[in-house]
């Protein structure tokens, strides 16, 4: 029982971080039909901004994190939209898919060549204590990760639902043409979406890197998991990405302990295939209707 609780908490903590990446993924899809195959690398990169800030420019941790946040907004948000997505969007999704694959490769190889090919230890923001809770040992870091990730997602949900800009963004996602007619600045709203994705990626990166070490190849698994979480939960819902992320985190941890460590990576994939067959719109998703 204690063991199960332990696994659940660490699964939820990892899942909440996956959810951050998955939410960004979903937002981009909604706002601009962009399937971002570089999402994993988007989560890998900000940690290296922090490390570079600390080791090369000698910044303290908080300043490095702040700089990394700004850089993520600029590079992963604004530049990604202006330089890559915007010129390619009129040509359909496929060239964009290829471009994001190439972008992911570019980011991964650049980090490997210009920073390091080895996994880098990353400073943790939270105390490393382990609490004893009814016989289960639960790390404070896990709890803090869970809280920060949830806070980010809840504030995003509030922003989208309760503010004028947020609602304009939702309108843009649902039907850009009607939104435009109703006086929404569609281009700006899409830009906000890309900025939010950059910010979410940076938060996820800073939370997950102390756990897994910062490494250039982290993006491969992270991107895959964000992708699966988004589809399992429901591609057109933020709630869906959250549920999907948490589910994958828990299932992954449970499978590693109780089923088989060898086929651990297969479980989310099988879940993905089953969901697509049984409920293609995802657990929380609503059906998008026919295209005719």
């Amino acid at each position: 029982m204690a063991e199960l609780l332990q696994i659940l908490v660490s699964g939820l903590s990892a899942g909440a971080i996956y959810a951050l990446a998955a939410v960004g993924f979903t937002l981009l899809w909604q706002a601009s039909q962009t399937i971002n195959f570089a999402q994993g690398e988007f989560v890998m990169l900000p940690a290296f901004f922090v490390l570079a800030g600390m080791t090369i420019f000698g910044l303290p941790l908080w300043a490095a994190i702040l700089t990394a946040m700004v850089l993520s907004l600029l590079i992963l948000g604004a530049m990604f939209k202006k330089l890559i997505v915007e010129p390619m969007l009129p040509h359909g999704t496929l060239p964009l898919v290829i471009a994001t694959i190439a972008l992911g490769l570019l980011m991964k190889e650049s980090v490997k060549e210009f920073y390091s090919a080895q996994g880098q230890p990353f400073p943790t923001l939270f105390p490393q204590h382990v609490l004893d809770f009814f016989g289960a040992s639960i790390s404070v870091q896990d709890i803090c990760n869970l809280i920060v990730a949830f806070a980010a997602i809840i504030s995003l949900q509030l922003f989208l639902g309760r503010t004028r800009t947020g609602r304009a963004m939702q309108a843009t996602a649902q039907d850009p043409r009607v939104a435009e007619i109703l006086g929404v600045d569609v281009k700006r709203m899409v830009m906000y979406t890309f900025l939010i994705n950059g910010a979410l990626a940076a938060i996820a990166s800073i939370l997950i890197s102390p756990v897994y070490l910062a490494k250039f190849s982290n993006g491969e698994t992270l991107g895959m998991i964000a992708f699966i979480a988004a589809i399992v939960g429901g591609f057109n819902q933020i709630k869906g990405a959250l549920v999907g992320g948490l589910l994958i985190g828990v299932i992954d941890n449970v499978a590693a302990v109780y089923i088989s460590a060898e086929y651990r990576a297969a479980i989310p994939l099988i879940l993905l295939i089953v969901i697509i067959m049984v409920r293609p719109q995802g657990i929380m998703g609503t059906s998008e209707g026919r295209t005719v």
Partner: protein
Amino acid sequence: MTALRILFLFAFGIALFIAPMGQGNYIIYVLCSWLIFSISAMGLNLTLGYAGQISLAQAAFMGIGAYITALLTMAGVHWIFAVFCSISASFVIGLALGYPALRVQHHFLAFVTLAFNTLVFLVLRNEDWLTGGSLGLVGIPRPEFGPFNTMMQLPFYYFVVVCFLITAAAMAWMLHSPWGRAFKALRENPIRANSLGLNTTRMTLLAFAIGSAMGGLAGALQAPLVQFIEPGSFTLILSLKILLMVIVGGSGYFFGPILGAGLVVLLPEMLRFTDGYYLIIYALLVLVVMIFSPQGLIGLGQKLLASFKPQEERGDLKQGAQL
């Protein structure tokens, strides 16, 4: 077919024939791998460029083909029989995988195949008793056809050329048959194709399964070429590379994937002098090609050609012509 086209095909054939002469083993190896990846990319082009579905499992089908051929030929079965098994297995698995995914919406085949590729990798790595686990299979024999032995690099190259030409001819024939036209109709306007009485689901599924079978064939050639296979050579990264070949070359064009495969296989060799930076340069090149010509290189070439051709336009039909 214009005279120019026939001349071009003829020149291409001659070039294929004389390319390896006087070259070292390594160059011939690179040429073989270009042809093999061309076959695989042509299969994906059928799924992607003609039927309009994204498949991210072409490497998995190559893996399935390669492992089946490797296991059978190592057990003493002749390559011809083994390749037949590889192709049929890939075709059937393609059908089984595509059927549920294609019932639902368009992007789902991409997601299902993405998961499938990783599943295949896990099975290849974990089932040691059959596949040799992460160590892979070593010492795959090359086929022998009576007195014609392909153990040496040069005969093997000509053997691959023959397989490539047969596949390309079959592909060209299929694209001009009613099937091929149905595939194109699907890509251009699925709703209209459906209203004209085409069973769109069945045609898409068929295109995907045939494309997968061509992946299986490519794998069956890859195994005797390298004579060593391991699960790590058939991961998602390779699928993405094959996708890249199709798109960068020009999807929906017959020669697109062949050009793309050449680029993806040869470019790293050409950029070797840049040491570790070649993947960075490579990724940048792909980004630039995609931003400036989403139709790929063949599309870019056609655009350039069209801009040099004189425009034959009747002035009196122009809007606002002063008559």
